[in-house]
């Protein structure tokens, strides 16, 4: 088949995918929320955080401003690379690839067909970097050509990261002879993403530079795509055309090379190897008896709940032990947070962490959403099993919530405790911080319920595949969640940023003696968590009941 014919086929395929995606979303309001309002809210939040920080640095030395650009580019880029790897990995191992493989398509065509769906959502991230770049241009009084150059640099960076992610996943897929489980592929891919974040840190481990500029913009980092992009933007902002062109050319070359290599690998190996991706998960040989429930994990958290709820949560946790890759998001965010924290903050202004923390918040929501999402995913047809048992939908929802809450709480509290130790936070302040964190995490996980039920959350691949049955009435209250998302992020940044700088939100209070800090923090978090709780709860249970019913009544369970 000629290149042109294949391209035509690819476009047809996209048309069908789009058709299925629109069919699967039953309510226009939800569509508007998921496709427009939620992204806009995230965009507004990130814009607010980055622009205010950048404008706040207007009078600061140029090195500090450049350092901010470099750090933001690095943090965002590392996060993006991780997301890309996950998206590419999911796309390549998504189920109906047999159809593509059986048809007379080349490996590179299959690759493109699979990636086409991912490209658009990935490029949305480029837009998130734009406000920072524009603010930088304004405070540097950059020439007019800087702005198109910044756009080109951003798009090229995102494209290069996607190409690299594709290459990484393909390389993992194509190396070795043994059977590959989805699990191992996920672990290796995440390991590589973590390495990309950590290795530069280790290279720099010598005497930590006090100047931000000599840190990320030094030669040790010149090979990292997002740093290339940052260099182009920084030079462009200062009006140095020649210095800006160089990294752009480098980026374009890297992107082209990675794409070419990915195509080559796909043509040579994809057909052979993609069939080897198997469902993972191995059960250890058991004791040979059906064990009783005594001494099972998480008893403390589960004790106040009904036996049916406990059974459902334990069932899901057992499953989670078989597919630990679903926890990789948490692992990545710990490493990520660590790298950002270890970054020298010359002025102790908190400005640098202030810019990158929004990304951490997105990451947290991302990880716990993923968990909730998959926990509903397992109950597709099995919901009949639960509904024919004496279990109410509210109990099912509580079980799903607890399932996500357990690991999320464990992880967040652990991270907070470690930072308390590093920052030598006094004991009473640490306790308060732990309580507040628990409260916020409970709210955030509750919030993920309606999103998971309506099936979209923030995982692009799944958004298109799961039918969304939420009545227009209840999706209106879903709309109310959009500002919450921004608020949640702001709150976390607000309460965590002092934690990073001075060792705990309450520690700042102890030092500064500003009582309103505490009052504001506690008040806001109570309000937000209660709001999230009630909204998550009501829309969640309604949507869930409705979805189960729709599945039965429409015969989609057949």
């Amino acid at each position, binding site marked *: 088949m000629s290149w042109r014919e294949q391209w035509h086929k690819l476009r047809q395929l996209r048309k069908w995918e789009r058709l299925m995606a629109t069919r699967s979303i039953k309510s226009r309001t939800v569509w508007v929320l998921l496709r427009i309002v939620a992204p806009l809210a995230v965009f507004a939040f990130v814009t607010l955080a980055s622009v205010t920080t950048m404008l706040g640095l207007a009078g600061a030395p140029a090195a500090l401003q450049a350092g901010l650009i470099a750090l933001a580019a690095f943090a965002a880029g590392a996060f993006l690379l991780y997301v890309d790897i996950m998206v590419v990995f999911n796309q390549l191992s998504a189920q109906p690839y047999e159809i593509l493989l059986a048809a007379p398509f080349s490996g590179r065509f299959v690759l493109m067909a699979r990636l086409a769906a991912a490209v658009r959502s990935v490029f949305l991230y480029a837009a998130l970097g734009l406000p920072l770049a524009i603010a930088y241009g304004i405070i540097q009084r950059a020439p007019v050509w800087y702005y198109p150059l910044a756009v080109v640099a951003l798009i090229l960076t995102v494209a290069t990261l996607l190409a690299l992610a594709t290459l990484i996943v393909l390389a993992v897929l194509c190396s070795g002879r043994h059977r590959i489980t989805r699990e191992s592929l996920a672990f290796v891919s995440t390991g590589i993403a973590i390495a990309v974040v950590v290795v530069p840190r280790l290279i720099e481990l010598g005497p930590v530079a006090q100047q931000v500029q000599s840190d990320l913009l030094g030669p040790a980092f010149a090979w990292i795509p997002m740093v290339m992009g940052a260099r182009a933007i920084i030079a462009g902002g200062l009006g140095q055309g020649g210095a800006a062109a160089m990294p752009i050319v480098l980026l374009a070359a890297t992107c082209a090379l990675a794409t070419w290599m990915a195509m080559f690998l796909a043509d040579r190996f994809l057909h052979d190897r993609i069939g080897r991706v198997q469902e993972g998960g191995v059960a250890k040989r058991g004791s040979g008896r059906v064990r009783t429930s005594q001494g099972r994990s998480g008893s403390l958290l589960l004790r106040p709940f009904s036996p049916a709820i406990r059974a459902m949560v334990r069932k899901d946790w057992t499953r989670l032990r078989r597919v630990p890759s679903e926890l990789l998001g948490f692992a990545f965010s710990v490493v990520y947070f660590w790298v950002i924290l270890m970054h020298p903050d010359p002025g102790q202004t908190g400005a640098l962490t202030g810019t990158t923390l929004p990304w951490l918040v997105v990451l947290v929501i991302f990880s716990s959403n993923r968990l909730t999402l998959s926990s509903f995913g397992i109950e597709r047809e099995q919901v009949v099993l639960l509904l*024919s048992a004496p279990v109410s939908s509210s109990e099912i929802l509580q079980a799903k919530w607890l399932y996500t809450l357990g690991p999320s709480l464990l992880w967040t509290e652990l991270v907070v405790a470690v930072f308390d130790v590093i920052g030598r936070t006094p004991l009473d302040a640490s306790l308060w911080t732990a309580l507040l964190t628990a409260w916020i995490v409970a709210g955030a996980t509750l919030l993920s319920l309606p999103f998971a039920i309506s099936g979209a959350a923030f995982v692009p691949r799944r958004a298109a595949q799961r039918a969304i049955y939420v009545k227009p009435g209840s999706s209106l209250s879903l709309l109310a969640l959009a500002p919450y998302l921004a608020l949640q992020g702001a709150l976390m940044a607000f309460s965590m940023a002092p934690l990073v700088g001075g060792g705990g939100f309450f520690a700042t209070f102890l030092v500064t003696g500003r009582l309103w800090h505490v009052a504001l923090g506690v008040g806001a978090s109570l309000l937000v968590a209660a709001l999230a709780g009630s909204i998550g709860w009501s829309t969640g249970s309604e949507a869930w009941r409705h979805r189960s019913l729709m599945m039965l009544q429409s015969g989609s369970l057949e």
Partner: protein
Amino acid sequence: MLVAQSLVKTFNGTHAVDHVSFTLKEGELFGFLGPNGAGKTTTIRMLTGLLTPTSGEVWIGPHSMQKSPKEAKRRLGYLPDKPLVYEKLTGREYIRFMAELYDMPDDVLEQAERHLEEFELKDAADQMISGYSHGMKQKIALIGQLTHRPEVLLLDEPTVGLDPKGARTLRDILRGLCSQGVTILISTHLLPIAEMLCDRVGIMEKGHLIALGTLAELQAEYSTSAGLEDLFLQVTDPGQRGGEA
């Protein structure tokens, strides 16, 4: 023990089930027969409370499925036509989950071990269910449904996917349950099984229950000495049906 009271289910204006009534006594084994699309699955789903009847009521013992669903469901076991299991659990974990879901004491697990042995699942019981064949999934799902000692057991085409030996074991287990007083409704295509096993049969066609009774009663009604298979064909084929509605 189980009463279906004038059950009606309409999907988009067409009657999938139309005024179906029957009563099952304690310890009875009832065969629910009918061609594809007759409305057996829909009726069973109404009996389990999964579908709300358009009109009519379901009673499990003294409890109405519509008025006190929790009480009714607690007494009910349901094996759908497609085995519903969690792929990432092992067979034993699945059984334990089912027992905990109904908050049963630990000694039910002893009984489950016996069933595992009878179905020759002992070796596979610690492997993940994703590796099971259709028949094995069917067996483990049935064992799971027995852990909470249901008083009424509803089986939708349980013999599909079972090997001859498994079908035999199933028969033995069902017989044993009946003698302990469990009421069983089994929908099936396999008429020899129904003939061998069931105390009474009901034959569905196009949403109507067109025949109900013991084999002898039906033979008398249609004045034939034929086996169930011929009787079934005679009853469900409109050309040969004499006079009744």
